[in-house]
């Protein structure tokens, strides 16, 4: 079982809640994914609107944990204030900390991320930092008090999969005991399986499920892929080689000598 901040999790698939065709499809996708953690956010709502209240009662009805994000924050101050607001509304010390540094790639601003992580960890938050695969940044985030890291696979919503296999493999090898959750950029279930095969503990998926033609079926497919990838990791994959190695025994082969 995976343990993050003292919480035992059976599911290695975290699901985002945005961009589904309807609340009904979202609920069905959560069940099909067998997700135990859903990401949520905070947005402006006018006095007459009720959308947020309806969404929150739907999520509470699903009986899962929520991981509030600070999506859209471009500064340390915005991210820290949003984290405080989320802690009050959602009643959890967990926060998926995003400090965005580039408007086109939605790449994390790792300098702001580290500063915000230091502040929030010191205030008792349990921070899930959305970061790059950079080893030094990872080390600093752990020094700041983070007990889990969320490296990106590729830019948010891009569906490109694991862009930097070398970097992600190095990150896994460098921090064997730290829960690592690939967040962002996965497009198809094979990307999720690959992340688990590399030894990542879990993946967080949103757009790939929500924007699929059939989000519920895609959620189920990701659940299978994550399970397969984790089972394969435990089974010990073979090393890749540059040349062929015969699988059929060569001893006793006919017509030779």
């Amino acid at each position, binding site marked *: 079982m995976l343990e993050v901040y003292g919480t035992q999790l059976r599911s290695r698939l975290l699901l985002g809640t*945005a961009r589904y065709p309807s609340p009904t499809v979202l609920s069905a996708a959560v069940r099909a994914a067998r997700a135990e953690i859903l990401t949520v*956010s905070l*947005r402006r709502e006018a*006095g007459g609107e009720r959308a947020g*209240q309806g969404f929150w009662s739907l999520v509470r009805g699903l009986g899962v944990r929520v991981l509030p994000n600070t999506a859209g924050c471009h500064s340390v101050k915005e991210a820290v204030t949003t984290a405080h607001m989320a802690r009050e*509304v959602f009643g959890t010390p967990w926060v998926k900390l995003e400090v965005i540094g580039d408007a086109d790639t939605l790449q994390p601003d790792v300098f702001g991320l580290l500063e915000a992580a230091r502040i929030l960890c010191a205030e008792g938050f349990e921070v899930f930092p959305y970061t790059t695969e950079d080893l030094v940044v990872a080390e600093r985030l752990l020094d700041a008090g983070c007990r889990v890291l969320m490296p990106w696979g590729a830019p948010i919503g891009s569906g490109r999969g694991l862009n930097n296999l070398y970097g992600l493999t190095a990150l896994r090898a460098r921090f064997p005991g730290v829960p690592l959750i690939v967040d962002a950029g996965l497009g198809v279930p094979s990307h999720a399986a690959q992340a688990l095969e590399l030894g990542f503990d879990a993946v967080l998926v949103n757009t790939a499920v929500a924007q699929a033609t059939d989000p519920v079926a895609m959620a189920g497919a990701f659940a299978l892929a994550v399970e397969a990838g984790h089972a394969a990791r435990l089974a010990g994959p073979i090393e890749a080689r540059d040349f062929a190695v015969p699988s059929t025994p060569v001893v006793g082969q006919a017509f030779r000598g």
Partner: protein
Amino acid sequence: MRILVNGVWRETAAAELAATLEELGYAGRIVATAVNGEFVAAEARPRTALAEGDRLEVLAPMQGG
């Protein structure tokens, strides 16, 4: 007084945050608040005075990735 509520200028009569939220139609709603970029906890709203030109953020739960 005029305050900026979620980026829109509004005319309000109440002097403090809790009453202002009621006036703006947020009574009984699950929202988080910030004034001039600083988080204001729910229990601190009744004693948080607002002044002309203050920037108020009222945020509600929403879908997120």
